[in-house]
């Protein structure tokens, strides 16, 4: 496999910057310097010792596992290359690599050290049989691999028995470098072999270099292509299984780690099964044999590995989930690993060969180490076009172990302030956003928040900051879904849709009605594309760093047995037709092809040709079935296209009408296909072209027979969604989207560590849900959910009047409730019960002098809102609704404009008698000595002030600044309180007591005067 990670294209400078960033984390673990190069390690838990083979110093370093100090050495024959401790911990077997160029002599041998006595035994091998690796399984005999044969060594008796070959029938013998070697050359580069043992001791896996010096032995077949051998030895049957592998890059680091039952082995950079299929691999291996190391910790189901993607990269230990190499955590190392990794039996300590000698990591006390972890991957601010008030989101930083870890936060996002920007965990960080910094932007702008800590041993991933700014006429609700989303499919049978999250190797399953996630399915490494089985019961997922297609049962939402691909084939794109299932594969040997999947057998094969055409495709190829699954369309980056006909079961069309192809793809018609803005007919002849002036096509979907297309004009611009005639492409409707849908260039980003990234130039980002309620697009913030009838006509709002909400008179005052009258003000009716009141309701927002108003109610012809509490004088009001923006309406905000609320059809004044707590009416008249509460609005400023949209406090009460006077029939009434009604928004109350001097009558005027404004209602008064 030879791929250049995106990060490397940018040059070593980028990695240099990354080094500065990564250095701001505390290294984890302890390094024991040995003064030499360690080629192998073995753990003797019974004695509390670790043995490290010092290849160049010709000795075994003995290190205490209690205090990590060197206790001594065991001098040996030169070049101890491999170590193995017998199961009874009595014997330490050492393989000596001795392969010298003449005139020097070679003395290959194996030393058996009796750890319970002074004795040792040296077993010599012929000069041509250089020991490369040694291992004990669940047996008292050790397996010794030499360049020419395999032996069983009985350490107690000191005997060796050749078990393989009886006759030499592999293509090449094994090999290592010939000494002396250039400066510098490391043991792994010299020996080029490694061994690992399954947790249960039943299997020993080995990796060794094939001899490339010329033919030898009785091997048959093409010998020049085999570079390495994978070997699996079954201890109980003494059966040895060989598998030749040609790997690009070479299988480095030269380490073998095996799972518990020996069914899988992590060899170099890939997890192989016994058939040589790569179940998962690290996405960016250097292939250097001496750089890095790994170990399989079965107890936790994790793989700990140092896999540098660049030679000068700072050493980082990555913790992977063992099944698909999903990155779980990254820890800073003191130095790079250089070979085998072993674990204590309880998994609490990791010992590894490293650059200076041995690195010891106390995994069991990782919880006590300093670490910093954020509780969110993304922070999304939703700024509505008429609400520019500062916003706050929160982020929690914790040490998973519970301790206090110092941290610093850094961001370059404009208008963002972090509070605190440094401190100790646990910490609740408030992220303050000033939307005014984005006033002239629309769409979603992204930035990162870096989490730095000189004491933390982990390297926290950045938190992505998203600021979405939208007008009311921009459609789509954003569902924040972090991660790298690369594919989406709507389930035609169930009310669900599926999204592929590539960085976490997952299929996210969403409910199509609630839009809530309901399941996560684990794929292989770096999933690229999904496909349904013909009966829609299964979901197939192609992976770019696993040689298999993942299979899931959609009824049970469980994984099924995957489909294995030929060695070196990575299925990126999968398509299911009525007759055959195809996969476009990237091949390790760069002969990319289309493989045919034999689903019942769960394996794939490479047909020698595709009909009359050579099976030789671009590695960036996408496959799509036609709508009726009668065809499979293949589009390639280099402009070639292919068509498979399921009825004929062959490829019937191949063309190249374009220099290159990329963009959105979809199957439309029977058959017809869309690629970017081109329509290809059933013979793949370009038939029509869509208008592309709006930007790049992101996705296509068919909804009610219409073609729906999403367009991106730029990653941080609003997107566009169009409804087009499926044949003529006549535009039927189009609306702006809240943010940009994804295109391939926006999906790609510099890779981080060993998290894989494969972005095909062809995108499928739009899904029409089977419930016909939504269209869902992959977008900048995750998902953008657009209503099915997104282009339903909606007129621009027209505002006819602004009046106070109490009695609909024209006077309005600060903090008062108002009614906005007009038409087409909203496309739906919605009311708010929450406080503070929202500034966007039903997709509508209202601004007065560019300040968003808190909203109580929106409907087609009425909006009720609250004026700002500190705004008087000339005012300009604009309503922003999905249909557009209204023309501005100018009006005056008076210092005070009291208005009593009217209730019911009779417009009964909202005046309550305290005696019986009922409204004053003709049948409940005012009596002398009554105490009345008058509910009104428009009484203006209060003290202490209360922000618009907020409920008035109970303590302290907010009283009006301009005192009102109240008369009844001309007789003044004492005012006990005038101010905001506690717990209410924009509602004032005036408490008065009724004197005896009031006149009696059926309609006696009650008048409120305030700052030159007044209001009058008539009430019945009865005396006594």
């Amino acid at each position: 496999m030879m791929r250049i990670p995106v990060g490397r294209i940018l040059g070593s400078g980028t990695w240099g910057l990354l080094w500065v960033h990564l250095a701001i984390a505390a290294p984890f673990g302890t390094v024991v310097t040995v003064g030499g190069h360690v080629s192998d390690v073995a753990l003797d838990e019974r004695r509390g010792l670790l043995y490290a083979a010092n290849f160049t110093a010709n000795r075994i370093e003995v290190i205490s596992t209690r205090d990590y100090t060197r206790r001594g050495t065991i001098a040996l024959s030169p070049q101890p290359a491999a170590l193995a401790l017998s199961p009874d911990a009595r014997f330490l077997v050492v393989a000596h690599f001795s392969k010298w160029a003449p005139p020097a002599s070679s003395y290959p041998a194996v030393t058996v050290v009796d750890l319970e006595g002074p004795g040792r035994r040296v077993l010599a091998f012929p000069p041509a049989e250089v020991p490369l690796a040694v291992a004990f399984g669940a047996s008292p005999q050790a397996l010794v691999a030499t360049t020419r044969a395999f032996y069983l060594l009985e350490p107690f008796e000191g005997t060796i028995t050749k078990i393989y070959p009886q006759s030499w029938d592999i293509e090449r013998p094994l090999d290592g470098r010939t000494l002396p070697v250039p400066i510098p050359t490391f043991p792994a580069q010299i020996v080029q072999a490694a061994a690992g043992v399954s947790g249960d001791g039943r299997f020993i896996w080995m990796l060794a270099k094939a001899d490339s010096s010329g033919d030898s032995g009785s091997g048959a077949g093409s010998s020049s292509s085999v570079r390495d051998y994978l070997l699996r030895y079954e201890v109980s049957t003494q059966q040895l299984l060989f598998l030749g592998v040609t790997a690009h890059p070479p299988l480095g680091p030269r380490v073998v780690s095996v799972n518990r039952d020996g069914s899988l082995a992590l060899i170099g950079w890939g997890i192989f099964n016994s058939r040589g299929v790569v179940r998962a691999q690290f996405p960016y291996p250097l292939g250097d044999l001496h750089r890095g190391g790994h170990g399989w910790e079965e107890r936790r189901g994790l793989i700990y590995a140092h896999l540098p993607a660049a030679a000068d990269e700072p050493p980082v230990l990555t913790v992977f989930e063992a099944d698909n190499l999903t990155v779980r955590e990254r820890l800073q190392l003191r130095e790079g690993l250089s070979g085998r990794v072993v674990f204590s039996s309880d998994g609490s300590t990791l010992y590894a060969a490293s650059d200076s000698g041995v690195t010891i990591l106390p995994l069991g006390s990782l919880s006590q180490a300093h670490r910093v972890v954020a509780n969110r991957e993304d922070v999304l601010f939703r700024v509505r076009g008429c609400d520019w008030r500062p916003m706050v989101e929160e982020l929690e930083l914790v040490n998973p172990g519970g301790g206090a870890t110092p941290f610093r936060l850094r961001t370059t996002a404009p208008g963002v302030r972090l509070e605190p920007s440094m401190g100790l965990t646990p910490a609740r960080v408030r992220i303050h956003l000033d939307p005014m910094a984005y006033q002239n932007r629309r769409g979603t702008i992204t930035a990162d928040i870096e989490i730095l800590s000189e004491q933390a041993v982990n390297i926290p991933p950045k938190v992505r900051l998203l600021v979405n700014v939208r007008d009311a006429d921009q459609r789509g609700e954003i569902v924040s879904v972090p991660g790298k989303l690369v594919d989406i499919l709507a389930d035609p049978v169930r009310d669900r849709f599926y999204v592929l999250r590539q960085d976490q190797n997952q299929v996210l399953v969403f409910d199509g009605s609630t839009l809530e996630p309901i399941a996560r399915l684990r794929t292989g490494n770096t999933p690229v594309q999904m496909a349904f089985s013909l009966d829609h019961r299964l979901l197939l997922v192609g992976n770019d760093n696993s040689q298999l297609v993942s299979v899931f049962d959609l009824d049970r939402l469980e994984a099924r047995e995957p489909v294995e691909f030929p060695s070196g084939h990575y299925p990126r794109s999968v398509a299911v037709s009525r007759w055959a299932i195809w996969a476009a594969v990237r091949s390790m040997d760069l002969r990319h092809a289309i493989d045919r999947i034999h689903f019942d057998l769960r394996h794939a094969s490479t047909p020698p040709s595709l009909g009359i055409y050579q099976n030789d495709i671009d590695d960036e190829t996408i496959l799509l079935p036609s709508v009726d699954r009668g065809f499979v369309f293949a589009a390639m980056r280099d402009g070639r296209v292919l068509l498979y006909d399921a009825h004929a079961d062959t490829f019937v069309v191949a063309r190249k009408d374009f220099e290159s192809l990329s963009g959105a793809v979809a199957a439309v018609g029977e058959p017809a296909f869309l690629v970017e803005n081109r329509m290809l007919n059933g013979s793949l002849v370009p038939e029509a072209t869509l208008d592309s002036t709006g930007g790049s096509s992101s996705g296509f979907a068919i909804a009610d027979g219409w073609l729906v297309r999403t367009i991106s004009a730029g990653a941080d611009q609003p997107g566009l969604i169009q409804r087009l005639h499926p044949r003529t492409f006549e535009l039927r409707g189009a609306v702006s989207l809240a943010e940009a849908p994804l295109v391939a260039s926006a999906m790609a980003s510099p890779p981080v560590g060993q998290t894989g990234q494969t972005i095909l130039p062809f995108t499928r980002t739009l899904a029409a849900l089977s419930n016909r309620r939504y269209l869902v697009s992959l977008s900048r913030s995750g998902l953008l959910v657009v209503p099915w009838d997104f282009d339903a006509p909606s007129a621009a709002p027209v505002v006819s009047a602004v009046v106070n909400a109490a009695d609909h008179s024209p006077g309005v005052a600060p903090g008062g409730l108002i009614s906005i009258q007009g038409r087409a003000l909203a496309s739906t009716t919605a009311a708010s019960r929450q406080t503070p009141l929202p500034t966007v309701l039903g997709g509508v927002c209202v601004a007065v002098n560019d300040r968003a108003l808190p909203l109580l109610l929106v409907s087609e012809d009425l909006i009720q809102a609250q004026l700002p509490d500190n705004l008087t004088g000339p005012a300009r009001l604009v309503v922003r609704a999905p249909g557009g923006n209204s023309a501005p309406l100018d009006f005056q905000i008076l210092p005070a404009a009291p208005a009593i609320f009217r209730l019911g059809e009779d417009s009964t004044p909202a005046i309550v008698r305290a005696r019986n707590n009922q409204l004053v009416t003709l049948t409940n008249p005012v009596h002398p000595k009554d105490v009345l509460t008058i509910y009104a609005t428009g009484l203006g400023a209060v003290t202490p002030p209360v922000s618009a949209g907020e409920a008035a406090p109970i303590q302290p009460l907010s009283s009006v600044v301009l005192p009102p006077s109240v008369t009844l029939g001309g007789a003044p009434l004492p005012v006990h309180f005038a101010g905001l009604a506690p717990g209410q928004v924009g509602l004032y109350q005036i408490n008065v007591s009724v004197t005896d001097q009031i006149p009696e009558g059926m309609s006696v005027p009650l008048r409120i005067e305030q700052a030159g404004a007044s209001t009058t209602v008539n009430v019945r008064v009865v005396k006594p």
Partner: protein
Amino acid sequence: MRSLVLASLTAAVFIPATAQEWELGGVGSYGFSRGLAAYAPVGTATTGFASGYAWGVLAGHNPHRLVGGEIRYAFRRGDLRVERGGQKATMRGHAHLVHYDVVVHAADRGAWVRPFFAVGGGARAFRGTGLERAVQPLSQFVLLTRTHQTLPVLSVGGGVKIRVSRWLSFRLEARDYVSPAPDKLLTPAPGAEIRGWLHDVVPAFGLTVTLR
């Protein structure tokens, strides 16, 4: 109420004392009140006071063998009401009556059975005491109001006195108390009017002690 008592005391002072017979007693009764019509643009309802018990005291003076006079006080329980069809609204209420009647007997003082006819006048204090409500049924006709109002009352009636012993008599009688409708308590709704006089027919049973 105070005016009623004052008027009664004044009447008692000026009644000359002759060879006469005095009666003191009490009555218990039940009043039947005929409803008044309340007219509104939407139709007609019936309003007034509900029938209810009454009790009272009397002081009679018979200076002549056939003619005498009585001053009487009565408490009449009667809720305010308005009805139309199956709909009804009420409010607790009562009335105090004070009146003086001239009584003409049909038999001499010594007769065991003395039928009589009485006519007189006084004052009636209506009082609404129930809870006011913001919403009252039939409020488009009449507004039942918690207040009080005093109006003149005409008393017409008759009965029979039956002497049980030399000094003890019991009586059976009935009176019709007629007064204008108390429009402060039974307030016509805007646009409505109440027509008619309030008739309250009160049959009673009483016991008196005769003093000679």
